[in-house]
């Protein structure tokens, strides 16, 4: 039964994610004084991609062929690691919902992304792969510092356990280190969604969509869904730890979760739509230092036992 719910969790995210993307596109258009696409545009785009033919460069190897699926699998597995429809009571599944599993599945996603980028031999895909790795280097430490505070504070790496703990009020915002970590973590998760100003790896103007540039047709559609899922997971990761709303009814908690994530995703437009993209060398470093210092503060608070 839990497995069935898990499947519903995954499929409903896949089905709903493009809608929120569509809404955010619509909202973005409104900010730009124009009508913009319909909110179902992302569905139409994906469906169209499925029907399109494909071309590829002669340099590609098996990695090119399997990477869309691998990317999807890692993103989907990450999403499954979020304990939404199941919780600590489901002893079997909750084993899977582990912060480290989530982090390392994210790393797997990154690994495949980089390798896929290099495989196409396209200069932009290569630079994009390089940026993806560099970005990972910048974000990982901030994310981990925040998570360390949470993991150690809660005494477990198990997400569903932590969620339950926080929900039941044994651990949470009353502890300063936790609340300070929340702010830095939100930053990291936003960066991980790869939206402006942090969309360096797929930057359209600079890199012509980077790694995605060499994919087309259904491959691209799968990668697009994978990226959407990853964005959802990242925002969900934040929500699950820092704003856990869970109900006994799995479907109810799934619906509230999707609504929450969707809301955050759409609100991202306020950051995403205004101002330019950062450069990898300075912009990111500077904002990272800011987030890093917040995260370090929370860590220092934790170490001092506050």
């Amino acid at each position, binding site marked *: 039964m839990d497995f069935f719910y898990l499947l519903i969790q995954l499929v409903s995210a896949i089905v709903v994610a493009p809608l929120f993307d569509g809404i955010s596109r619509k909202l973005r*258009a409104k900010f730009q004084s124009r009508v913009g696409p319909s909110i179902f545009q992302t569905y139409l785009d994906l469906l169209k991609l499925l029907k*399109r033919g494909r*071309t590829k460069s002669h340099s590609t190897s098996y990695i090119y062929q399997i990477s869309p699926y691998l990317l999807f699998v890692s993103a989907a597995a990450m999403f499954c690691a979020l304990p939404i429809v199941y919780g600590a009571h489901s002893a079997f599944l909750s084993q899977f919902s582990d912060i480290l599993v989530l982090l390392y599945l994210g790393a797997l996603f990154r690994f495949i992304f980089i390798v896929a980028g290099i495989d196409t031999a396209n200069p932009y895909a290569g630079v994009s792969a390089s940026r993806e790795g560099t970005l990972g280097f910048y974000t990982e430490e901030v994310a981990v510092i925040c998570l360390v505070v949470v993991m150690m504070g809660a005494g477990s790496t198990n997400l569903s356990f932590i969620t339950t703990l926080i929900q039941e009020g044994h651990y949470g915002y009353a502890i300063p280190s936790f609340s300070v970590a929340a702010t830095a973590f939100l930053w990291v998760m936003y960066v991980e969604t790869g939206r402006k100003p942090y969309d360096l790896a797929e930057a359209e103007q600079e890199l012509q969509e980077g790694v995605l540039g060499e994919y087309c047709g259904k491959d*691209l559609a799968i990668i697009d869904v994978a990226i959407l899922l990853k964005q959802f997971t990242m925002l969900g990761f934040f929500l699950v730890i820092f704003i856990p709303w869970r109900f006994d009814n799995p479907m109810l908690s799934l619906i509230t979760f999707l609504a929450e994530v969707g809301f955050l995703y759409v609100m991202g437009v306020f950051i995403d739509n205004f101002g330019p993209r950062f450069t990898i060398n300075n912009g990111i470093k500077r904002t990272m230092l800011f987030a890093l210092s917040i995260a370090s503060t929370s860590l220092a608070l934790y170490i001092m036992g506050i």
Partner: protein
Amino acid sequence: MKTYQVPQEIQDANTLEQKLELLKHIGRSFSVFRIDCGSCNGCEIEIFAAITPLWDPERFGFKLVANPRHADILLCTGPVTRQMYYPLLRAYEATPDPKIVVALGACGVSGGIFYDAYSVLSGIDKIIPVDAYIPGCPPHPASIIYGLTTALGVMEQKLQKVSFEHDGDLPPLVEDSVLGNTLFERDLLVQAKKLMSYVFGRKLFDKYISALTQSGNTKDAKATKISITEAMRVEDDPRYAECMGILHNEIYTQYVSCEEEDKIELHRVKWGAK
């Protein structure tokens, strides 16, 4: 001159049926890749203008993509210069099949003003098969929107080939002159065009002639002066008013014998100031 032969593999995947099938799928979501084959930039700028808030083709699912592999429609501009021949082919081959090729602008459609220069190949369709043509130099953004929606089948094509073959009896082409001498009208029109260009010159000409006929007797210098001055007075536009006076002074006086006082004094009055 030897040019590109579309490889069989691409030809087979780009038959008309397949393209029509494609149009069904991309009707509400189409990605466009711009290829500038050596245009003057005007078309590019108008494409840019067409994606701005005023026109916003994203309403129809338009998306400008950075890479031909994501494209459904290739929007080609320019007369295909020698140097752009190779990149054009690369982009064409990199685009997944089937694909729609749109030639934009006079140059893209047929080479435009450059059609026979040594370093252009005059038109996209000389190199690769083109499915839709959007003329204009450069096309108005509305024209581009219209062209794309037409290509997708949202709008109907308005233009059809027009051919007049029957050369029937001619209507009288030359109207009677107000002064009984067509040379007057000829000179008048020439001067009007010189003053206010062919667009407004013709209007000025009409205004002047109608003011002239208002006077009753077109050959009476005094009467015409009064009627022209009145016409100038009621004219909203100072430029027309002043130019009517100039016309009267410079042309009319040549055909009708006038005194110096019959000329209109132009510099005393501020025209159109009411």
